[in-house]
């Protein structure tokens, strides 16, 4: 117990007495965490945009009157088993009529022509997928002989270009987000690692003295690891505070700027995911802080 107490005391002593060194390492780590936090907020927002967009896209397969109920239900259950299919909604003739009548764009005269007794509107399946490529699969499936002669039309062909464009666009945005986040994270890790390495090599003389006085391996190493932990912890506190203030500031200023809509989207996501974003920063901060201390001691110090 006394030993643990002394090791912790040694870490705090070194952290606060080497003020400038600790401040530099903490600030560099803060920058790294800021880029991690910002990447996270932006990528969560981008994902939200992509998801909203995907939710708005669907295809509808319309059936001829001679198609049997069981055939439609068969197709529905065939589609439901696929993991990428989010929902398949059956549209009966009555549903189709109700939707048709509620459409504001339909003229009153036309609306009155279609009645429950004389309803030419087809039955259909409204299909929504989390993956745009799945729509092409559906289009292929209904071309099969079992279905082809009963399918009246499908909105896939009409929406094909739109679906492909959105699909390519979202894929590009997702990949770009991932690449940019990784790029920033790797760069900041390298910078942090080198800063901590510098801090440890700056102290290598002290480590040599400790060894000569008879300090054991743990007595030398563990305080440095705790110091690395402190860099990570303080950096997380600073970066979380900066992001929090930054978001609040953008929120209050954005009403008169062109970023207003983006900020409107970003703010609720940040507050909603606050603990997740902070948790990731703590983990990354402590991991980089402790990890780079550990690697530096291993590399710089012959114990």
């Amino acid at each position, binding site marked *: 117990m*006394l*030993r643990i107490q*002394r090791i912790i005391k040694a870490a705090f*002593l*070194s952290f606060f*007495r*080497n003020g400038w060194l600790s401040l530099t390492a903490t600030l560099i780590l803060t920058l790294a965490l800021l880029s991690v936090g910002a990447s996270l907020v932006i990528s969560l927002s981008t994902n939200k945009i992509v998801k909203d967009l995907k939710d708005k896209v669907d295809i509808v397969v319309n059936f001829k009157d001679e198609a049997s109920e069981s055939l439609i239900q068969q197709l529905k259950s065939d589609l439901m088993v696929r993991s990428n299919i989010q929902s398949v909604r059956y549209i009966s003739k009555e549903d189709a009529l109700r939707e048709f009548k509620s459409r504001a764009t339909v003229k009153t005269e036309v609306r009155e022509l279609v009645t429950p007794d004389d309803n030419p509107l087809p039955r259909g399946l409204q299909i929504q997928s989390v993956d745009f490529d799945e729509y092409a699969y559906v289009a292929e499936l209904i071309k099969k002989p079992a279905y082809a002669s009963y399918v009246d039309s499908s909105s896939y062909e009409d929406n094909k270009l739109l679906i492909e464009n959105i699909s390519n666009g979202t894929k590009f945005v997702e990949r770009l987000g991932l690449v940019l986040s990784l790029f920033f994270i790797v760069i900041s890790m390298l910078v942090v690692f080198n800063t901590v390495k510098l801090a440890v090599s700056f102290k290598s*003389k*002290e480590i*040599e*003295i*400790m*060894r*000569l*006085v*008879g*300090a*054991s*391996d743990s*007595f030398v190493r563990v305080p440095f690891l705790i110091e690395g932990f402190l860099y990570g912890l303080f950096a997380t506190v600073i970066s979380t505070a900066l992001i929090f203030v930054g978001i609040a500031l953008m929120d209050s200023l954005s009403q008169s700027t062109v970023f207003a809509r983006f900020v409107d989207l970003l703010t609720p996501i940040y507050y909603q995911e606050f603990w997740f974003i902070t948790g990731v920063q703590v983990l990354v901060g402590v991991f980089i802080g402790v990890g780079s201390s550990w690697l530096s001691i291993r590399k710089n110090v012959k*114990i």
Partner: protein
Amino acid sequence: MNEAERHPLIEVKDVSKKYGSNFALSGASLNIFPREFVILVGPSGAGKSTLIRLLIREEKPDGGRIRVAGRDITKLSSRELPYYRRNLGIVFQDYKLLPTRTVWENIAYALEVSDASEEDIQKRIPKVLAAVNLKGKEKDYPDQLSGGEQQRVSIARALVHLPKVLIADEPTGNLDPQASREIADILEKINCQGTVVLLATHNRELVDRMRKRVVVMKEGKIISDQHQGRYTC
């Protein structure tokens, strides 16, 4: 002389150490007995510092054997090494003090690593500070002290855990004659209390004044060993 004092505390036998193709030590043998004060002299490159590095197990010899208190230190594992060093007192030319710790904390560190109790630390440090005439400097940092004072802190740290052997490598190398004499006096006082002192030095005046056992080294060999010797290289 009792039975234990008839056996050497430090036994260096046929020790050699090579750096590249150069022999820093070549077949050096030396026995140091309890309570002895041994001064190691010789020109630069004679092998004094190498011998000291081997004795504090900073390095291992390429050949030969070194026993301290009956234990072959060349066979110590890295886990055993800290325990061995806690039984030595080591003083260096450049003091090797922890710059971000006060005088008190530097000395306490030597006790903390060996799990000494707080009570023990509080009791021992004032005594050792008094022995090296540093009372009142407890809260100073090393850079607030003169060279002589820093070296006295280093000696206090080496002594605080009551080692059997004190090894000093050029402790007066950076000091003026007055401070050097003070250090020599402290080392003699320590030796009088029963601690073996091994002092490597270039300081002719110091060696001639002390009239102790003088071991002369040259080109990695021990060429002379005289009781109550003088500086002869």
